[in-house]
Structure formats: structure tokens, C-alpha cells
């Protein structure tokens, strides 16, 4: 692999742990490399993921290292890629297919919804679908139409699918390794605008979720910033933006907690209850359109658990009910710092009656 990894000092309490500085692209690449090494039944395939290493280079060098049978290019056909995954899973393999961009999951939607999501049920548990579908997701890179979409609500609504979206290199590494070893289909939504951002990755924590900061569960949410006045709930690329917002809000004396949901199905409702139970106010931030978005689900989970203590209705700051706009309008569409600050203001200034 061509990645350059710089060794950084370990934490104060555990000097043995090699914490590496790497980008999310490098973290995902390393995770896939280790998955291939650990599990001979794993196969990675999709458009251009072999010799090219993927248009985002997530599979860079993997074909050269693990061979053309383990990592291979397919014809350009998303339904074919996902339909083929079903047959490979039935034959005992662990497919990690890739669709090149989120919008290209649409041509494969029949295979994802009618086949992958249902085969375990249809076959009464005899044909599990241990498929991890990697989907470069969300916007923020000024790409052409269909190259930036937020499909999490669509996938999360489908019985039989699980959905996860990492926000940083450490989680990207661990959540992918975890997802790829599960017996159920997982849609792995990679925030493409975060691929090149570097961060610390502790590669020695073999089981994600065992660290206290993970909330004790590999499918748990994570508090990425503690705060007292309200909780920002986000996932994927929006987590970094919410952290920026929290810093700005702090200048005005507003202490914002940021909860990275990580798993969008199942949603860690307990983490929501714990955080909002403490702050008593919540704003959900997502890139997807507002109507029937995942923000509504999160708001309901909070309402159900924290109704008595909430000081304001849960607010949502989201994309709009429009087709994902062209690059020039992207900054107007994706929740920006100002819109999130307005959302915070709405919950802080809410008065009953």
C-alpha cells in the first residue's frame, strides 16, 4: 500500500497502544487489507476497485496484495454487483461489494431490498447474507448529479438491513472490521467528504465498543463532545460540522454536547436518552431531505424517552425536500454552521404556550 502512516505517541494511560495518524481513506484501506488477511472467504468487488483501487482509492493495492480472485473488477452494472453478492453469500463467501457513488445504489435497489434484505427471512435463516455494501455517501465534494445522495432513511426503513456511517478514521477502521464480520447485511455509508481528513486510529482495540468512549457497545453511539445545554445529534460528515458549531457556540457560553450516532439502524436509543436526559434539549442534523428523514425517527425516540424533561421540541436542521442540488448550490443545501446555530437558538429560546 502506498499510505504513509506516522506513528504517534500512545495515550497517557496506555503507552503500548500504537495510535496511528491516518486519513479515513487509509483507515478503510487498512481495515479491508486486514479483513482479507483474516478471512479467506472475503471477496471485494465492484466497478474499478481492482487495478485502479477504486475511484476514491479505498481498495488501493488490495488486488496486487491479495490476488485477482479476492479483489476484482466487475462489469459496470450495480444490480449485477449486488445480485452476484447474494449468490456468493449463498456459496459461503463474505462479499464486500462497492457501489461507486451513492446515487448508483438506485439501479441496484431491487437486489438490495427484495433480495439481500430478505434472503435470511425468506430462507428461514438458512441463507444468511453476510454482505457489507460499501457506499461512498453524502455530498460536499461538488460532484455531478447522482454522486452525492443521503440514502440512510431509505436503507434504514428496509427490514433486514443494518446501516452504519463512521465520522472519523478510528471509527471507519473499527466499524468496517466489525460490519464485515457480521452475519447480516450492513450498508456501510462512508462520508466521502471526510475521506482525506486525518485523525488518530488505535488499531489495537480489536473489538470496537469495548472502550469506555464507545458507550460499551459495538453498535453504540458515541458522545464526541460533552456539554450541558443541548445535544447535537449527527452522523457521518455532519459530526465534524457539529463539533465546529459546538466550538463557536462555546464562545457565546453555550455548552453543546455532540452525539455521533454511528449506527443508523439499529439506533442507540439509550445513548439518546442519556444525553438528552442530561441536556434536556436536542437538535438533529442531517444532510438528507427533511420529510420522512431519519431526524424524525431520532426526534421520536427522544420524545418517547425524555418527554417529561424536554425543555423544547426536538429541532431538525437538514437538507431540503429537493433533489440533491448541483455543486454551486451544495453549500446552501447541506446544513451549514449558521443554520445549525439557528436550530440551536430555536431550542434555547423556546417558550411554552
Amino acid at each position, binding site marked *: 500500500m502506498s499510505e504513509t502512516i506516522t506513528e504517534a505517541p500512545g495515550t497517557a494511560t496506555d503507552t503500548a497502544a500504537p495510535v496511528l495518524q491516518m486519513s479515513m481513506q487509509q483507515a478503510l484501506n487498512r481495515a479491508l487489507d486486514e479483513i482479507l488477511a483474516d478471512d479467506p472467504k472475503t471477496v471485494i468487488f465492484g466497478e474499478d476497485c481492482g487495478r485502479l483501487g477504486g475511484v476514491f482509492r479505498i481498495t488501493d493495492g488490495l488486488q496486487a496484495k491479495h490476488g485477482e480472485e479476492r479483489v476484482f473488477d466487475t*462489469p459496470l452494472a450495480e444490480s*449485477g454487483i449486488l445480485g*452476484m453478492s447474494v449468490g456468493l453469500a*449463498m456459496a459461503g463467501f463474505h462479499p464486500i461489494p462497492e457501489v461507486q457513488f451513492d446515487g448508483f445504489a438506485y439501479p441496484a435497489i431491487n437486489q438490495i431490498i427484495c*433480495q439481500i434484505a430478505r434472503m435470511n*427471512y425468506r430462507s428461514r435463516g*438458512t441463507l444468511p447474507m453476510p454482505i457489507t455494501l460499501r457506499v461512498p455517501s453524502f455530498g460536499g465534494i461538488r460532484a455531478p448529479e447522482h454522486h452525492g445522495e443521503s440514502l440512510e432513511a431509505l436503507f434504514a426503513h428496509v427490514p433486514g438491513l*443494518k446501516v452504519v456511517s463512521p465520522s472519523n478514521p478510528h471509527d471507519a477502521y473499527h466499524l468496517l472490521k466489525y460490519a464485515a464480520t457480521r452475519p447480516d447485511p450492513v450498508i456501510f455509508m462512508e462520508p466521502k467528504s471526510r475521506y482525506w481528513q486525518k485523525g488518530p486510529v488505535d488499531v489495537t482495540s480489536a473489538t470496537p465498543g469495548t472502550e469506555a468512549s464507545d458507550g460499551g457497545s459495538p453498535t453504540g453511539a458515541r458522545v464526541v463532545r460533552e456539554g450541558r445545554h443541548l445535544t447535537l445529534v449527527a452522523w457521518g460528515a455532519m459530526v465534524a460540522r457539529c463539533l465546529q458549531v459546538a466550538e463557536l457556540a462555546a464562545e457565546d457560553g453555550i455548552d453543546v454536547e455532540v452525539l455521533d450516532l454511528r449506527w443508523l439502524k439499529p439506533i442507540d*436509543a439509550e445513548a439518546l436518552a442519556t444525553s438528552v436526559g442530561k441536556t434536556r434539549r436536542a437538535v438533529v442534523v442531517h444532510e438528507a431531505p427533511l420529510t420522512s428523514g431519519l431526524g424524525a425517527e431520532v426526534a421520536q425516540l427522544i420524545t418517547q424517552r425524555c418527554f417529561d424533561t424536554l425543555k423544547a421540541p426536538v429541532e431538525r436542521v437538514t437538507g431540503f425536500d429537493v433533489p440533491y442540488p448541483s455543486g454551486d448550490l451544495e453549500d446552501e443545501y447541506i446544513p451549514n454552521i449558521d443554520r445549525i446555530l439557528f436550530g440551536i437558538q430555536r431550542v434555547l429560546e423556546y417558550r411554552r404556550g
Partner: protein
Amino acid sequence: MTTKHLLAAVDEDAAPLTHEQLRELYALMASVRHLDTAAVAWQRQGIIPGYAPQLGQEAAQVGSGYAVDRTMDFVFPTYREMGVARAMGVDMVGYMSTHKATWHGGMYNPLESRFAPIQAVVAGSVLHAVGWAHGQTLSGKPDGERGVAMTYFGDGASSQGDVHEAMNFAAVMKAPVVFFIQNNGWAISVPTERQVAGGSVAARAAGYGIPSLQVDGNDVVAVFEATRSAFAHCRAGHGPVVIEAMTYRRGPHSTADDPGRYRTLDEERLGAGEDPLERFRQRLLADGVADAAFFAEAQRRAEEEEEAIRSGIEALGPRPGAEMFSLVFQEPTPTLQSQATAWRKESEHV
């Protein structure tokens, strides 16, 4: 279009069917004919809510299914492959449980029976066959131990894009797949000429560089031999094969269908041609392979079998509701578990 010689070359040593095998084929067809006819009656009697008959397709289904090696091959059906299932020895109560509305996909074990779950998106499983077949290529198993996938679909399904993707993938990857098309003349109410451009489904194979053949789908021996050749071709590592069995769906598409709206009885008689079961009976008689006593016995066994299957499905109670929740995932989500708990609690009054 027909490239049968390509296939014959790898199968020249195949022995002709023995008299015993011919009789077995007939007995299977008789069982399938009787069960199929009975299933329509069951629907009329309210024993099952619906059924997709395959009257007239017995030769295509039994002949092809008989060629499957159940120790290593795998079949990917749609919802009209009862005859294939029977020929492969699938548990028929489990098979019919789909039509009883007991469980989507059937109650048989697909891994043990080598027969994938029944499903209704007609071209959906064609790609699964390609994936499974490519898995055989990747398996590292020695020559002769790698299985072949056979995927069934019809002239109607051939209009779906997944069939193109599947044929293209299979040809590019040289996957050991037999694409078995039963061209029964009708996609519900739409005839083949309004469904299939390019003259035939088999003709399309040339565009992918896949050898193909059309076979008389009402001739069980011809179907068996074509399928056996195709399997030999795949097993030898030569990649996929397309077989188009020309047959005719004599009855309705499903028990909810009214063929009188789109074809007359005269057209049906004309289009259907010779009855594949009667035709095979005459052939076995003429060749001295079977006699009247054998046919009577085959019929008696078919009736006995049908009765056993009917009482089997009548005895099927509804599935425990908890299965609705427990079979979605291998690792259920907390949300689903809490839904199951709530369902249990709120159903206690029942």
C-alpha cells in the same frame, strides 16, 4: 443460432438413458402433472389461496431438473418450478407451503435440497446464480467437484435488465451457469412476440458469446440431453450456456388469471401442440420401454403422493408469530426484539 455442436463435443461420452431412467422420467412427469392439476383443485376448494400452474411444462421442468447433480449443483427457481423441485426430490409439502401462504420462499431447506427459495421477482434470482457459480470458480475445489448453477426464468422475465446483466457477468467471468429459459408463450397475458425482441431468448446469447440452443420443451428426453450437455460444458470450465425450451403454458398464469380474456380455447389447443406427457407415453409404448401396467402404477403412485402432500399441507398450522421477528436477522436488533416483546404481550389475550 443453435450451437449445439459446441456442447455435444464435451458430452460425446454421455450414455443414452436406460429404460429404467426413461420410466423414472415418466413417473416424475406423471406425478408433476397430477400434483399440478390437484393444486388448482385445492385452490378451488379453499385448501390453498393461490397457485401458479405449469400444465404443459412437465417435460421442460422434469427433463432439466433430472440433470442436476444434487451433491454439487444448485438451482435458482422463480415460482413456477414445481416440476423441477419434484424432479430434484425437494420436500413437496415444504414447497407447497408457499402456495398455502405459510411461509414466503417455502419451508424446505434450500441448502439441503439445492433448490433456492421461491421468489417472485422473476429475474431476481438469475444474478444469484451467477454469483453462486462464480463462487464455485473461486472455491479452490478441484476439477470435477465444482458445481454448476442453473437458473430458471421465462420469456417474460427475459425482458428484465437483470437477465442482461447476468448473461454479461457470466460470460465475462466464464461462470458455470446454465440459463434455462422456459418459453411458454405467455407472460401472463402478453404473447412472446410482444415480449421478446430479436426472435428468441436463445438468439441473445450470441451477443454475449455464450453458446445456446433451443430445444423442444415438450420432449423430456431432448430437454434432459440438452441440459446434461450444458452441465458438462460448464463443468469442463467453458463458461455459461443458454437453453431455451420451447413449450406452452396450457392453463392460466395463476389461479387468479382468466386466459379467456387474451386467448381462445382454439388458439390454446393450436399453440399448445402435443401434450408432453401423452407424447412420452406413446413413445415408451412404441419402444417397448413401458406397458399399460406401468402407466397405471405410475398414476396410482402419483395419486397416492398427491394425497400425502395435500394432507401434509392441510396439517400445516400457521407459523408461530414469533418467527416473524426472529428470522429477520441472524443478530436481531434491540428495536426488533422490543417489538417482539410488545407483540407477545399484546397478543396474550388471544
